[in-house]
């Protein structure tokens, strides 16, 4: 769990109430008192009578009396009401959507050729969105090894972070699962895109996953993206060869070339390894707990 805490630390830091921050360091230099005025004054334009309203704005209750909506005097109030509602929607209530194909790649690992995808999308307004995510992998000459789809309600809770909740359906040869999901996704300081979630399965298993990625712009179009992911489990799940604690760690780097902002082919390398009890379980099964892959794929934005 300590790893979760570490992974989520930037998120929690950001969520922490800004009010708790120390701003005693402010040393506001009081503006010089200059009588407003004479044209050749070098301070012309500085309305140095620094408004006393800076801290306490005077808000008049409702100056002037009259009808709430002036146009109702000249136009059918019912028609105006419809126009007002349209105006309200057109100035702020922008409903939009996006599909972000973060990774669609072929993987090459010692003669084993496979594929992987990681795509998400959303539909909604600024605060409330329907969010979906899907990822998975498989071998070209075999079955899908793992595929999942999350359907989430996402709510913006801070300027940079969304709280997400919903369900996840996972398909694996060893057995399917349906999970409840509670996660946080957003942008941490230093431009780290982070995403962390807790999963509770229909079998009562509690697992978690956190990932972070970063875009290092080498040039305007050539971008190196390091990416890391950590998986955890609260208990041993022998069915999936998962031990308690941190189970898997993944680190990779992808170098993409943005032909347009919406379409970028990339090449990369990714290492994944099982750790702790999981490593022992995998070894006991006679499998290799580590893997290094070369990846070739595209990133796209729709």
């Amino acid at each position, binding site marked *: 769990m300590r790893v979760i805490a570490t992974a989520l630390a930037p998120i929690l830091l950001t969520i922490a109430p800004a009010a708790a921050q120390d701003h005693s360091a402010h040393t506001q230099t009081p503006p010089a008192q200059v009588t407003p005025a004479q*044209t050749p004054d070098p301070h012309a334009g500085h309305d140095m009578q620094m408004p006393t309203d800076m801290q306490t704005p005077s808000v008049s209750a409702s100056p002037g009396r009259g009808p709430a909506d002036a146009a109702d005097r000249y136009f059918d109030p019912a028609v105006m009401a419809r126009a007002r509602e349209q105006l*309200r929607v057109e100035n702020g209530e922008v409903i939009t959507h996006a599909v972000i194909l973060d990774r669609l790649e072929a993987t090459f690992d010692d003669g084993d050729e496979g594929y992987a995808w990681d795509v998400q999308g959303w539909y909604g307004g600024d605060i409330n969105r329907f969010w979906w995510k899907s990822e998975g992998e498989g071998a070209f000459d075999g079955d899908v090894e793992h595929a999942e789809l999350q359907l989430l309600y996402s709510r913006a809770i801070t300027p940079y972070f969304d709280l997400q909740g919903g369900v996840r359906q996972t398909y694996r040869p060893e057995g399917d699962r349906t999970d409840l999901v509670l996660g946080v996704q957003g942008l941490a300081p230093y431009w780290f895109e982070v995403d962390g979630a807790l999963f509770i399965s229909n079998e009562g298993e509690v697992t978690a996953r956190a990932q972070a990625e970063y875009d290092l712009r080498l040039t305007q179009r050539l971008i190196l993206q390091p990416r890391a992911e950590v998986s955890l489990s609260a208990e041993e799940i022998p069915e999936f060869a998962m031990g308690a604690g941190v189970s898997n760690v993944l680190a990779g780097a992808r170098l993409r070339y943005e032909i347009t902002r919406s379409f970028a082919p990339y090449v990369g390398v990714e290492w994944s390894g099982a750790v702790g009890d999981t490593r022992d379980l995998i070894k006991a099964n006679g499998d290799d707990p580590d893997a290094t892959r070369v990846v070739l794929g595209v990133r796209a934005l729709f």
Partner: protein
Amino acid sequence: MKLDRRTLLQAAGGAGLASLSSLLPAWAQSGSAGIAPTLPTLSGADIALSVGHTPFSVGGRTGHAVTVNGTLPAPLLRLREGQPARLSVTNTLDEDTSIHWHGLLLPFQMDGVPGVSFPGIRPRETFVYEFPVRQAGTFWYHSHSGLQEAMGHYGPIIIDPATPDPVAYDREHVLILSDWSFLHPHEILRRLKASPGYFNQQRTTVAGLLSGEDRMSAEERRMWAGMRMDPRDILDVSGSTYTYLVNGHGPAENWTGLFRPGERVRLRIINAAAMTIFNVRIPGLPMTIVQADGENVRPVETDEFQISIAETYDVIVQPTEDRAFTIVAEAMDRSGMGRATLAPRLGMSAEVPPLRQIPNLTMRDMGMDMGSMAGMSGMDHGGMDHGSGGMNMRDPSLAPPNMAVGVGVQTISPMPENRLSERPTGLETVDHRVLVYTDLVALTPNRDTRAPSRTMQIHLTGNMERFMWGFDGRRFSELVEPIRFARNERVRVTLINDTMMSHPIHLHGHFFELVNGHPGHQPLKHTVNVAPGGRVSFDLTADNPGDWAFHCHMLMHMHAGMFNVVTVRPLDEAAS
């Protein structure tokens, strides 16, 4: 100086032959000899306008435009101060439309904002605007429905004064600046919501760090990154999708306005762009600013000025040499330029200067006082991110109690400065004269000499990561309270920019006086650009009763929520 009508008429004939494009009104056609009162434009007591779909071509590509009378830009409306105006607007689109007469003082129900002043013009309907023309100067008109303005629905208005014009000139040209994209504006907005840096191809890079081209140290980058702020986020939409137009002409099409050496030429410059602030200069030709936003100012000579969206500037130039001059309208983020030519004869051109260095924003653009930052060089800039002490970029205690400090507020300027005397973004260090807002002095004394009876503060807020914009932390869609004024009251309104973007703020139905250090002669404006992290005060006499729109003229900022309604009550003088 006297107007030589015959010369102008001859020149006009020549221009007519030279211009073949039916999509351009005569005044906007290249090789224009200028506008004379005798040239065919739309004028008179009864004007018919029709809004429709038209293909528009620039740079060899053709796209879909929304136009007035089939032209982009729309026809020049030439009115006379004191005349009654009657403008019938017919909608041939399949969606509602409208025309707002930008800068005109008229009864609110004629202002043309659907949902505020009237219901809008439904498809296949005609709405008749009728109002007395009370002003003289350079204005413009555009749709206030959806994002039609970004698709070509804009045009110039010139109102000739009833009394002799204090500005003497031999010839005049209109230069209407705009930005054109082959992407639908809704798609532009969608991409901004999905990826706020989508159109920015000028961000800092490792290559730029190594070569020194970015002019920014690794330490400075670390500080900006810690704040999740981009020092190159200057305009949201850039030349990566926009072609910048002058009178509907792309840079290669080189719109040309004619002059005869020695003439005083009046250029009426209008920024009708959706998302672009321009820096305007004519290398080799000083410009004398004589009017801003349609109001005369004391003539002031300069070499370059910034024109924010929806502003207008009239300048006088007097080219004496028999040669061409390039008019450069460089986008503030240096991602492209609008280009036109002033020449004695068609077909001439002058050198087009290359785009200048991309400006970097500074801590001042985040509303931090550089004075108090002086001791910061030795300080750990990493301490500037949230939660670790030092400078807090989002301290809710700095917000007024009526401000909502929520998801839509990314930063709150700790020390918003009055920046009216500062050179605008990107022009800080250019080695020639640059107009600043404090240079503007009203030509005639201000009519209302009363001291403001109250003050009001409005924060311009936003979240660039989510592309959310609003006033006092709220988008208009959140059912905000209108901004209320009592009729004829005088109020000092202070706009505080809590964001790192410029916001051209426009109030309908009124001209406000910019508090810029010239009491009694404060310049009158309908739109003021509030610099990043800065603050601007204006004095308003709320003398036009009714409901009025008040918004950021960055069209996408408005659409994302930076909009409110201003009410002036009572409606009837008798009731007051």
